[in-house]
């Protein structure tokens, strides 16, 4: 394996390890750590992720999402300028072509699928600029992510918002949905 690691991430996640078909000890050797140290680091990484990944219907904009969504979010950022909003509205595909985004990200933008954009690394404060360019209220965007109509969503808010009870963990959502 030595000599062939150039260009590969020095520290790969388990999914990448599966692709590369490395054993834990091979991967550990690549980064100059013992197998035990590597397992400890991975466990730590998992623990770090686990504490908020259990929150249902919520995507925390952490390092991995920020990295995946960089160009998607910077596209949205560009819409703060009036002339860019005009150029985007005039020809969406041509404008999106200026940003090195993935095909999935482009597709999600074209579909205005906010949940999908978030899955692909979008952050809501950036995505809101796309909504503003479309002339949509923030409540319109929020409703679109919840599966409610804007009227239903507005009514839920008037009734005091989405209750925290039953909405704390994925387990609670699993139970609710049978």
């Amino acid at each position, binding site marked *: 394996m030595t000599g062939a690691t150039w260009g590969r991430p020095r520290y790969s996640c388990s999914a990448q390890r599966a692709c590369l078909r490395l054993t834990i000890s091979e991967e550990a050797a690549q980064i100059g750590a013992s197998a035990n140290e590597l397992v400890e680091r991975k466990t730590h990484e998992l623990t770090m992720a686990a*504490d*908020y990944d259990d*929150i*249902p*219907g*919520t*995507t*925390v*904009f*952490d*390092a991995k999402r*920020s990295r995946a969504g*960089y160009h998607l*979010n*910077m596209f*949205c*950022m560009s*819409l*703060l*300028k*009036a002339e860019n*909003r005009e150029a985007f509205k005039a020809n969406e595909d041509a404008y999106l072509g200026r940003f090195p985004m993935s095909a999935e990200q482009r597709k999600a933008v074209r579909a205005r699928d*906010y*949940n999908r954009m*978030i899955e692909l690394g979008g*952050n*809501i*404060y*950036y995505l*809101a*600029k796309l909504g*503003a*360019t479309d002339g949509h*209220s*923030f*409540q319109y965007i*929020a*409703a679109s*992510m*919840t*599966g409610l109509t804007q009227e239903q*969503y507005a009514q*839920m*808010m*008037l009734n*005091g*918002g*989405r*209750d*925290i009870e039953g*909405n*704390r*963990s994925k387990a609670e959502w699993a139970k609710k949905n049978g």
Partner: protein
Amino acid sequence: MARIVAGVAMSHVPAIGAAIDNGKTGEPYWVPVFKGFEFSKEWIRKLKPDVAIVVYNDHATAFSLEIIPTFALGCAEEFPPADEGWGPRRVPVVKGHPDLAWHIAQSTILDEFDMTIVNKMEVDHGLTVPLSLMCGTPEEWPFPVIPLCVNVVQYPPPTGHRCYMLGKAIRRAVESFDRDLRVLIFGTGGMSHQLQGPRAGLSNRKFDYAFLDGLTKDPEALTRIKPVEYLRESGSEGIELVMWLVMRGALNDRVEEVHRFHHIPVSNSSLGHIILENR
């Protein structure tokens, strides 16, 4: 010697700015919201602070993913309102207070807080909505403002404890400034709200009330709230509440709560508001 005389905290929901700018404050939806600030407008008019420090977060306006400072202090002469996608708010340009701002930057850095110094910055609704709520629609804002931006967009934001300790460092900085200034500090953002994903619209009245109680009586307890607890209990954007702890840290241990207001909903959020005077 300059001193901090009081602290005020409130949500900074952008729809409030839009309601003011588009003349909708008399509509039934908005009447109760602005009623909650009638006392506050009178209070701040009487207080006449010489300068205000406004702790808020930039919402991908002045900062993007290119540069993400955890704490950034506005040291410029002035801060124009930003275009956030629908044209800039028609509110006065925010005048800074470079003398005190630079002093706070130097003092907090030597106090081991690694402050980013900002000499050019446009300010978004996070800063201008609280000014509108407290001061209405004047020709000029009645006092100069020192913006303090806290990153709460990119995870992780600074912890509540760190924010509280920064507040204490800001107080030391203000008290070592050799001019007699009465300083008001704003903590903004929150309260419970979630703007993204299938759980959007979350609100947690119990959490908000406990947070308001804690601010007055036991802020140290609030500094122990972990990031994941904010995310889970107060929603993914409720974590903005750490900025209220900068304000609280800058006050005396003993404060008097002179006003409190809580209202659901404002757009997608629970709105909270509190005024604390040093005792």
